[in-house]
Structures are given as C-alpha cells and as structure tokens.
C-alpha cells in the first residue's frame, strides 16, 4: 500500500485540488474564554467558502487567525500544502492573504487614498507619490460602484457604506490569493451589495479563494460554493451549496440540525 493513498482522504470530489490554505485543529483562548476549540478548514482556489454561525460563534476570530492578526494557541496552518508559520498580519499579507475586517480597520484621520494604500504607499524616491495613488485609487473604487466625491476627504467624514467600500476595495485590489471578508455588506445599500457579490464572482474566476462571513443567507446562494457552519468555537457542519438549502443552514446555525 502506498503512503500517498493513506495520506489523502477522499471525502468529496473537490478534495483533489490542493487547498491554498488549510487549517488544522486551531485553538484560540482569550483569558478563560475558548473562542476556538479545534477548527479544521480547507480553502481551495477559485472557490467561495461561506462561513456562518451565530453571534460570538468564533467566525471573526477564525478569520483573524487566517489573516495573521491572531496567532493560534494550538494548531497548524498550511499554505499550498506546505506548513506556514506567519505570526503577524504583514507576513500574511506577503503570502497574499487579504482581509476585510468587521471593524474595517481604517484610519479615520487619513484620507480615502491614504487608507486604500495604507501600509503599501506608492513612492517616488523617498516621497509619497500622491498623484499616482490618486489615479490608482479611482480605478480601485470604480470596480465597486461606490461614489466618493473627494478622494482627499478624511475617512471620518464618510458614511458607513462608503467606509465599508473603502475597506473592501483595499483588500481586493492588491492581487490577493485568499480574500477574507468579514460581513463586508452589513452597511451597504442594494446596488452596492450587488457590486460586492459581482466582485466576489469576478475574483473567484481568477482563481482567488474567497471566505465570506455574512448573516445575509440569501447572498450565500449567489456566490458561495461551500458553506461551513460554526457553533460555539467549533465547526459543526460543512455543506456543498448544491446539497443544502436555506432552512437546513438556519437549523445548523441555531444548533437544531447537527449531525
């Protein structure tokens, strides 16, 4: 019997693809509170994974572990099948893992352009290249159909939806391989939600792996290929989208349908 055959469990057809990112037995404890109690998760290229669960189920914590914001207490992360040991967001960014945070992580005192390029400012010599950043920023925001009249306005003066759009544009615009979105549409109006869903389908087609956290169940069926359900810090179920329906997902979230 070959070792390779033993190492590869075949639970679904998609498992043949090497996951971009694979989490194994992730634990995270805050003080005495076990936010994550051993989570396994595979994320494959060109796929959108929906991550759902009740409030405080641990979705944001898990996604922050993926993005390098939290270092897990236990567990292993593999990128492209190889063990990865990133310990901060910068190292995750260098692996092309990008995230839209639930709290957006914007700097209120900095203008729109500055926030879009936060942490990777374009430079000319030793100085910031404001002109080029302005031009690029226009292009980044155009993809999201959001209207921001003045790109040099401070972010603190913008509406909630505009701020959210900036956070999405920032994460999506720098060739991510893994794009994590933690409730990216919670403050968006109808047209803007459509634009975000389109964006997800567009980057998926380019082979990007998307993790979408949302409480808007109907959106899941528009973009997701697979759904993972979290409950009290564990992953309780995983479903291919074609094998499930709204009612089953709702039951799984509240803990009625667990097998």
């Amino acid at each position, binding site marked *: 019997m070959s070792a390779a055959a033993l190492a590869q469990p075949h639970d679904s057809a998609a498992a043949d693809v090497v996951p971009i990112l694979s989490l194994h037995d992730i634990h995270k404890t805050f003080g005495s509170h076990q936010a994550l109690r051993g989570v396994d998760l595979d994320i494959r290229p060109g796929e959108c994974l929906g991550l759902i669960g009740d409030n405080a189920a641990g979705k944001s914590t898990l996604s922050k572990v993926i993005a390098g914001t939290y270092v897990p207490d236990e567990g292993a992360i593999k990128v492209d099948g190889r063990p990865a040991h990133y310990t901060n967001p910068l190292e995750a*960014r260098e692996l092309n893992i990008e995230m839209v*945070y639930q709290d957006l992580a*914007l*700097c209120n*005192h900095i203008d729109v352009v500055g926030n879009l390029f*936060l942490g990777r400012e374009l*430079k000319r010599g030793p100085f910031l290249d404001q002109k080029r950043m302005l031009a690029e920023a226009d292009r980044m925001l155009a993809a999201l159909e959001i209207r921001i*009249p003045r790109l040099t306005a401070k972010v603190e003066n913008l509406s909630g939806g505009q701020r959210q759009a900036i956070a999405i544009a920032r994460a999506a615009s720098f060739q991510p391989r893994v794009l994590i979105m933690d409730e990216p549409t919670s403050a968006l109006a109808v047209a803007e939600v459509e634009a975000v869903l389109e964006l997800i389908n567009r980057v998926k087609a380019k082979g990007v792996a998307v993790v979408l956290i949302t409480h808007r169940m109907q959106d899941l069926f528009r973009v997701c290929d697979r759904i993972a359900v979290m409950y009290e810090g564990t992953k309780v179920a995983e479903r291919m989208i074609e094998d499930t329906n709204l009612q089953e997902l709702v039951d799984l979230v509240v803990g009625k349908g667990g097998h």
Partner: protein
Amino acid sequence: MATYTERQSGSWLADLVSEHAQVLSIALFFLLCLAFFSAMNPNFLTSGNLLNVVRQAAPILIVAVAMTLVIATSGIDLSVGSMVALINATVAIVIAAGVSWPIAIMLMLLMGALIGGVQGWFISYQGIPAFIVTLAGLSILRGAALFMTEGYSIPIRDAGGFFWLGRGEIVGLPVPALLAVLVAVLGFVVMRRTTYGRQVISVGSNMEAARRVGMPARRVLASVYVVAGIACAVAAILLAARLGSGSSNAAQGFELQVIAAVVLGGTALQGGKASMLGTVLGTMTIAVIGNGLILMHISPFFTQIVTGTIILVAIWMNTRLFDRRWRLGKRKTA
C-alpha cells in the same frame, strides 16, 4: 413625481477654510499678539528685538517639532525639559574634560536618542502610559543633572566653533533660528510627504489598523520618543552654545512651553493629527508673549501663569470648538 437631483458641492473655499480653521485661528491670534505688544512698547518691533525673539524661540521650536510627532501618536513627552537640562550639563562637562566639541555634539545626539529609546521602549513595548513614563523621566533626568553638577553651572571655554552655533549669524540671521527653521521644514516634509510621517499618523489614529496593514506599529510608536530625545539634544547644545555654560537648572518649565506651542498650533492630544505649520505659529506666539511681557516690565513669573492659561484655553478650544467642525455659514442645498 419625485425628481432626482445631485447634491451641490459646497464652495472649495469653505472646504479649505474649515479644513485649516485651526491654523488660520492661531495665525490670527499670533497677529493679534504682535499688534498688541507693538502698541504697548515701541521697542518690540525693532529688528534687534525680533531677532532676539527668534533666537530664544529656536530651542522651543526644535523640540516642539518632535513633540508634534509624539502628540500625533496620542502620546506625550513630559521629560523634554529635564532631558535638555541633563544634556546641557553633560555637554559642558564633556567639553570641560577635553573632548573636542564636534565629538561632544555627536555623543550628545546619541545620548538623547538613547534616553528617548528607553522611554519609547517602556511606552511601546511594555504598554506603560506615556504620561507615567515621561513623568518619571522628568524627575529622573533632572535629578541626574543636579547630581552630576551639584547644582553648579559649568563653564565652557575655548570652543569658538561651538559658541558660533549659539551666537553666530549667517547674513544677519541667528544660527539657532536658521537651524530651527531647517528642523521645522524637515518636520513638515516628513509628516506630509514620507511613509514615516504616514506611519506616525496611522499609529496615532488607529494603532491596531496600522498593525493589521503590516506597519511596524510598535517600532514607530517607540521611534517618536527617540526623535524627541534627539531634538532635546539639539536644543540643549544650542542653549549651551548661547550661554557658554551648562547647568542642571537650564530649561525650567520648558516642557510646558513646548506642549503649549504644539496644542496651540492645533495638534490634537487624541492623536492622528499633526500640524507643523500650527506648531511653528504656536511656538512663535509663546515666544512673542514671553518677550512682550518682559518688555512691558511685567514680572517674569507672570509668564508662567500666561503659559499655563494658554494651554488650558487652547485645549478647551480644541475640544469645544473644533471637534464639532467649524463651518463658515451654512451651505445651501438645492
């Protein structure tokens, strides 16, 4: 039927004015001070006196530029006065011990960076509030200066080049003032145009966001105290060069003048904002008031009362007026 119309954008002038309201108001206040003191005393507006004002303002301005960075990270450095005193005394001791003055200057800059680095380490990597760390620094550094000098002033002899830094002139302008202007321009460019300036603002605005986008947030936070330490060293050197001696009693109440200059200039204590132009105007206002009161033969002790009052009023205006955003009239909507 409803008709859809676009919002009219307000006039760019109103936008400009509301964005720079604080700098404009401190500029106005500065001009008022100038007018007041020249009306009170005919000697005030003489070139001799004005050069004296800028010469005296130079050390304040240099440290205020650095303090602008510190306050932009929502920190504070209360130790600057004591640090100036310590380095001021040390440079005199070192030169008296026979070290050549250019090397002494290098050593002092290093010493400032080192002291700032230690304070920055406690603040950034150990999470102790800047207020506490630098309050301790205020006591320790002044104490160290007194301990070294036993309270005596130490004369500096035979260092012509060194004295030139404090007393010299280039085309009729005092060297310390020119140096201070250079530092202010440098500060302006760094904050406006460089990645480091952007990082300082980000850390002050939202440290966690800065970390998440991959900025070395802790290192940036610690670095502003190093910058403050170096600025203190420069100020201490200029003071020693002007007075020809070093003393542990130098720069009494200096931290108050510096902080007053920065907040008067509109840099918010909550962080995330830095106004170099405001800091320059704030410093000049503080210097003009100090000088003007002396010319009016008012007790020098009164200056302290005025400086304290200015800090209080400036912060009060900062929180009361500007947080609610200044608007010039109401914009008309279609």
